[in-house]
C-alpha cells in the first residue's frame, strides 16, 4: 500500500474540489506519511491553499489533517498556522485549532512553546463559545498530563464562569469542563459547598460519563467540607440514586459503575447510602458483574443486614457456576472474620454447605474455615467435627494445607488427628510444596504437644514426625522445605524449647490487611471514572507515566477519613506553610506588580524545577521560583517524583515516599497561600 502513496498524492493534487476523494486521500496520507515523508510533503501545498481560501469546513479539515501528520514539514507548518486559526472568527475552526495545539505538543512541545501556543490556548478559555472553551480545556488537560512542569489552576471566579458554561455546552463538552474543575482548590468550606450544589444536577445527566464526572467533582470537593453529609443532607441520597440508576444500563457500563461503587465504599462510605439488596446478583448477569457485586455485598454487610446477606450468599453458594460458588463461600468466610457478631451465623451456613458433600464446596469451605478457626481460637468445635467426616474428600492443595493446619493446630480437640495426618503423609512426596510445608509444621507441632499424652499417642506422633522429617530431608529437592526440615530437626534435638518455637499463640488475623493505604485511595478517589478506578490498584503501578495526583492543600481541606494518622501531618503542614509565609513575604510582594492587570481566566502554572523561569513567562504565571526557599523545596520535590515513576512498586522506597509527601505538602501549602494573598490584594 505504501507504494501507492505517490499516486494518492497526485490524485490529491489534481482533485482539489472533490471533498470525498480528498477525504479518502487524507486517510491514506495520515497512515503512510511517516514511512515516506518526502512524498507526503508534496501534498502540503493542497492544504495550504485550503487554509488560505476554503470554506470553514474545508479549512477545519485541512487544519485537522496537517496537525495529525507526524512528519517534520507538517509539524512546522502546523506550528506556523495555528496562531492564526486560534483567533479565527468561526468557532468550529477555533475548536479544531485548539485540539491541533494538543496534537502539536504531543509531537514537539518545544516548537509549541516557541510559537507561544500555550498562552494562546490559555486565552481561548475566555471564549464565549462553550464548545471552544471545552475543547481548549480538553487540549490543555492533555498537554498538562504529558509534561511534569505544568499545572492547571483555576481561581474561584473562573470556576464560577466554567460552571455557568456547563449549561450551554454539549455532553462531551460538559465532560471536559467538569473534569477541569478538579483543578480548582476551594479555599473555604462555603466555596466547596456552593460548587457541590451547582454540580449536583449533572448527576442526573443521561450520559453516564457526564454523571460520573460530576460525581468525581463532588467527591473531590467533599474533601474540603467538614461534614459534607451534615451540611448537605440530600447529598448521600442523590449520589446513591445516581449510582443505582446507572446500574440499569448495559452490562459494560454497569461494570464500570460497580467498580466505582467499591472505590466509594472504601473511601467515602459516608457519602453514600446504598441498600445491599440493590446489588444482589441476577441470574443472567455476566460473571464479571456477579463478581463485582459480590465484593460490594461483602463491603456493605454489617450487623443490621447480615441476615439477608447470608441468605443471599448461601443461595449463590449452591449455584451451578463453580467460580461463583467458590467466591461466595469465600465471602461468607471473610464476613465471619470481619464482623465478630456474625461469626456463629456464618459458621452455621458453612456447616449446612458441608452437608451437601459436593467436592468443590467442601474444598472451599475447608479453606475459609481455617481462617475462621484461626481468628476465633477456642470456638466452633462443631466445624472441626464436621471436618473429620470430610477428610477423605479434600483434594486440592490449598484445601489440603488448610485441613492439615487445622488438624495440627487443634489436635487437642481431635482425637484421631495423628492418625489422619499419618494418612496424609502417605502421599507426601507427590504433594505440592505448600502442602508438604504444612504437614511438616503440623507433625512437629503435634509431637511437641504429645509429651503430655499417653505413651501410645506419643509414639504415633513421634513416628509421624520422624517419617516426615526423613522424607523432607532425604527425598525432597526443594531447598526451602529441606532447610526447614533440618531446622526443625535441630530444634527437636535441642528439645528444651520446642513448644515455644512451634506452638505459640498466633497473632489475631483481620480483614483490614487487604485495605489499600490511605494515600493510594486518595489518588484513586481523584481518578473516579478513569481506568484506574476499574483496576483499583495504585495508579503508578498500572500507568507508569501518569502524574501522581493528590489533594491540594487549602485551609478548608478536611481529612476526616477515619483511621488516618493525620494529626501529626496536619501540624507539619501548618508549620511548613507558616514558615514559607514568613520567609517569603518579601519575595511575594513584588509579584502582583509584575503581573498584567487583566489576569488570564485560568492560569497555567509553569514550574521550571532547576533553572529560573524566563522573565516573560513569569508575568503570566504563578511561579514559586521567586521565593527565597522555592528552589530548595523544588529540588526535593522533583527528585522523589522521578523515583516514583521509575520504580513504582519498590518497597524500599517508603522512606523517600514520606519525605516527598512532606515536601509536596509544604509546596502545595505555599501555593494556596500565595493565591489567597493575591486575591486579597
Amino acid at each position, binding site marked *: 500500500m505504501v507504494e501507492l502513496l505517490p499516486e494518492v498524492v497526485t490524485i490529491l493534487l489534481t482533485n482539489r474540489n472533490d471533498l470525498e476523494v480528498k477525504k479518502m486521500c487524507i486517510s491514506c496520507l495520515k497512515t503512510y506519511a511517516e514511512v515516506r515523508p518526502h512524498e507526503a510533503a508534496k501534498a502540503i501545498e493542497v492544504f495550504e491553499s485550503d487554509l488560505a481560501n476554503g470554506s470553514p469546513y474545508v479549512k477545519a479539515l485541512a487544519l485537522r489533517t496537517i496537525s495529525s501528520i507526524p512528519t517534520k514539514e507538517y509539524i512546522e507548518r502546523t506550528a506556523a498556522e495555528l496562531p492564526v486559526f486560534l483567533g479565527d472568527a468561526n468557532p468550529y475552526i477555533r475548536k479544531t485549532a485548539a485540539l491541533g495545539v494538543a496534537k502539536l505538543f504531543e509531537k514537539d512541545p518545544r516548537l509549541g512553546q516557541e510559537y507561544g501556543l500555550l498562552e494562546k490556548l490559555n486565552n481561548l478559555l475566555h471564549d464565549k463559545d462553550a464548545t471552544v472553551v471545552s475543547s481548549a480545556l480538553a487540549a490543555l488537560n492533555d498537554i498538562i498530563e504529558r509534561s511534569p512542569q505544568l499545572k492547571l489552576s483555576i481561581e474561584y471566579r473562573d470556576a464560577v464562569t466554567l460552571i455557568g458554561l456547563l449549561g450551554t455546552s454539549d455532553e462531551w463538552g460538559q465532560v471536559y469542563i467538569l473534569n477541569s474543575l478538579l483543578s480548582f482548590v476551594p479555599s473555604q468550606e462555603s466555596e466547596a459547598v456552593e460548587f457541590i450544589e451547582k454540580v449536583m444536577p449533572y448527576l442526573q445527566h443521561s450520559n453516564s460519563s457526564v454523571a460520573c464526572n460530576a460525581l468525581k467533582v463532588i467527591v473531590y470537593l467533599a474533601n474540603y467540607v467538614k461534614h459534607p453529609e451534615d451540611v448537605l443532607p440530600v447529598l448521600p441520597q442523590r449520589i446513591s440514586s445516581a449510582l443505582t440508576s446507572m446500574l440499569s444500563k448495559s452490562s459494560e457500563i454497569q461494570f*464500570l459503575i460497580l467498580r466505582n461503587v467499591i472505590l466509594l465504599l472504601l473511601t467515602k462510605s459516608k457519602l453514600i447510602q446504598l441498600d445491599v439488596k440493590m446489588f444482589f446478583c441476577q441470574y443472567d448477569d455476566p460473571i464479571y458483574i456477579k463478581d463485582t457485586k459480590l465484593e460490594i455485598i461483602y463491603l456493605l454487610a454489617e450487623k443490621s443486614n447480615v441476615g439477608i446477606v447470608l441468605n443471599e450468599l448461601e443461595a449463590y453458594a449452591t449455584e451451578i457456576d463453580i467460580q461463583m460458588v467458590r467466591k461466595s463461600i469465600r465471602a461468607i468466610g471473610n464476613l465471619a472474620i470481619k464482623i465478630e457478631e456474625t461469626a456463629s451465623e456464618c459458621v452455621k451456613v458453612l456447616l449446612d454447605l458441608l452437608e451437601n458433600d459436593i467436592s468443590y464446596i467442601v474444598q472451599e469451605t475447608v479453606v475459609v474455615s481455617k481462617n475462621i478457626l484461626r481468628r476465633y481460637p477456642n470456638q466452633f468445635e462443631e466445624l472441626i467435627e464436621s471436618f473429620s467426616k470430610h477428610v477423605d474428600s479434600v483434594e486440592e492443595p490449598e484445601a489440603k494445607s488448610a485441613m492439615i493446619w487445622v488438624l495440627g493446630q487443634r489436635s487437642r480437640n481431635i482425637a484421631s488427628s495423628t492418625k489422619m495426618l499419618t494418612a496424609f503423609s502417605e502421599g507426601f512426596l507427590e504433594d505440592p510444596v505448600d502442602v508438604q510445608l504444612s504437614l511438616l509444621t503440623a507433625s512437629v507441632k503435634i509431637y511437641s504437644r504429645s509429651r503430655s499424652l499417653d505413651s501410645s499417642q506419643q509414639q504415633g506422633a513421634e513416628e509421624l514426625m520422624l517419617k516426615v522429617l526423613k522424607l523432607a530431608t532425604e527425598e525432597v529437592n526443594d531447598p526451602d522445605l529441606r532447610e526447614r526440615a533440618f531446622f526443625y530437626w535441630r530444634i527437636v534435638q535441642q528439645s528444651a524449647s520446642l513448644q515455644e518455637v512451634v506452638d505459640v499463640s498466633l497473632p489475631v488475623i483481620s480483614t483490614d490487611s487487604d485495605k489499600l493505604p490511605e494515600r493510594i485511595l486518595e489518588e484513586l478517589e481523584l481518578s473516579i471514572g478513569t481506568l484506574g478506578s476499574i483496576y483499583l490498584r495504585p495508579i503508578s503501578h498500572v500507568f507508569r507515566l501518569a502524574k501522581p495526583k493528590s489533594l491540594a492543600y487549602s485551609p478548608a481541606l478536611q481529612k476526616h477519613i477515619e483511621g488516618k494518622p493525620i494529626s501529626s501531618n496536619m501540624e507539619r503542614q501548618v508549620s511548613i506553610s507558616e514558615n514559607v509565609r514568613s520567609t517569603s513575604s518579601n519575595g511575594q510582594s513584588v509579584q502582583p506588580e509584575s503581573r498584567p492587570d487583566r489576569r488570564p481566566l485560568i492560569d497555567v502554572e509553569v514550574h521550571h524545577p532547576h533553572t529560573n523561569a524566563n522573565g516573560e513567562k513569569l508575568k503570566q504565571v504563578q511561579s514559586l521560583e521567586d521565593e527565597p526557599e522555592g528552589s530548595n523545596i523544588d529540588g526535593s520535590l522533583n527528585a522523589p517524583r522521578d523515583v516514583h515513576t521509575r520504580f513504582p512498586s519498590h518497597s524500599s522506597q517508603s522512606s523517600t515516599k514520606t519525605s516527598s509527601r512532606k515536601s509536596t505538602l509544604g509546596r502545595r501549602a505555599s501555593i494556596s497561600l500565595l493565591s489567597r494573598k493575591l486575591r486579597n490584594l
Partner: protein
Amino acid sequence: MASSIHFLDLKGKALLSRDYKGDIPNGALEKFPVLLVDHTNTGLGSDETSLPPVLYDNGINYIYVVHKDLYILAMTRENTNVFAIMIFLNNLVKVLINYFKSLQEEAIRDNFVIMYELLDEMMDFGLPQITDPKILKEYITQKSYTLEEALGQIRASSTGQQAAPKLPPSTLTKSISWRSEGIVYKKNEAFLDVIESINMTINAKGQTLSSEILGRINVKSNLSGMPDLRLGLNEKFLNSGARLAESGAGVASDRAVTNELEDVKFHQCVRLSKFENEKIITFVPPDGEFDLMTYRILSPSINQLFVVDYKMQNHSNTRLEILLKVRTNFKPKLVCNNLEIYIPCPDDISSPKFGRTKGSVKYLPDKSCLCWKFKSINGGKEYSMIAELQLPSVHSGDEYQLESFRKRPLKLNFQIPYYTTSGLQVRYLRINESKLNYQAYPWVRYVTQSGDDYVIRVS
C-alpha cells in the same frame, strides 16, 4: 483519551482501524484475541461473554464492546476517562446502526469509506466530538450500502441525498447543538410515550426480594422551527421525589428511607438547573424520536402484578410433574397483553404433556424451558397449568444435578397498556414556538411492561 479504535471480527481479526495518536505499538492489536482466549482459559468464565469489558496487558488498556459478530475496541496507554470511551463506543454503534441499518461484519466491509469519514468526525485526537447521528447525517451524506440493497432490493436510502452543502453545520458550535434550524412539518405533533419497565425478584416463599420501576418518557417530536416545550407531570409523582429527599435529610442514618429511591435523568436538551430549582421540565426538543427522561423508583411497596404458585414433583427420577398457578393481581378492567412465563426444566426431557386452563404451552429445547403464553389476560383472574415431563432412563448425574434446573428462576414477560405502576401522569405538554406560532397537538400513551429481570425463584 482513546489512542485508536478498531473493529474486529469474532476471531479477533482486524477489519478496520483508525489510529488517532500513534502511541500504540504494532503488536498490541494482535495481542487482543490472545488476551480473550487467555482470560477464558484461566477459568474466569466458560464463555466469551463473561469477560470483563476492560482488559490490561503490558501497558496497553483494551476497552471493548461486543455487538453481534463484532468487537469494537478502543486502546489507550493513559489513565483516561473510561466512561467517556465506553459511552463513545456505545454511541458509535448507535450511529453506525443509524447509517447502515444493521451493524455487522458485512456492513463494515461494504462501507469503508463512510466508516473512515465518520470516525474522523466523531473523534479527534482521541477526544469524542460529535456523536449525535442526527447532526452527523447533516453533513456526512455519502451513500451507505445497507444489506438490503446488496441483496438487490434497491430503494432510495434515506442517507443518499448527495447534494448537501459542505459547510460545518451551525449546530456544531451553537448552544442548542441537538437541533438544526429550519425544520418544517405540515402537521405539528408531539407524541409522548410513558413506558415503565418493572424488574422484580421474588423468592420461593412469595416474598419480594427487590423491585424497581425503570420508567422513561419517549418523545417523538414532529414540530417546526425552534419550539420551546414545557411538560407538566402530576404533583404526586414529582413530590414523591422531593418528599423522599427531605425525609432522607432528617434521618440520614435510617436505611429504611433509602428503600424508596427516586432518581430522574434527563436528555441533554432539558434545562437541568430549572428543574433543580422549580421542578419544571422545559426543553427545546431534538427533531424526531428521543428519550426525554428516564427515572427509576425502587420500592418494596410495588404490588406483585402476578402471584405465581410453583410445585414440582420428581417421580423417582423418571418423570417430573410441574404444577403452576398464576393469579393476575391488578384491577379487572386492565388487560395484560402477551404474558409469557418461562419455566425452566432439565436439559434432556422427552414427550412433554401439558394441561392448562388458558393460553398455550410450548417446550423450548434450546432454552431448556417451557413457555406458557397468553395473548391477553384480564386482571383478577387465576389460571393453572400442569406439565408432565419424561426424563431419560439413563442419566449421568445424581439427583442434585438433575434438579439443578430449579436454580434457574421463572421469568415473566408482559405488557399492560394504559397503566403506570408509579402513578405518573402527564398533566399537560405546552408547545410554544415564538416565531411561527402554530397550533400543535400533543399525544400521550402509557404502558407498563416487564423489564429484563422479572423473575421468580423456585428454590
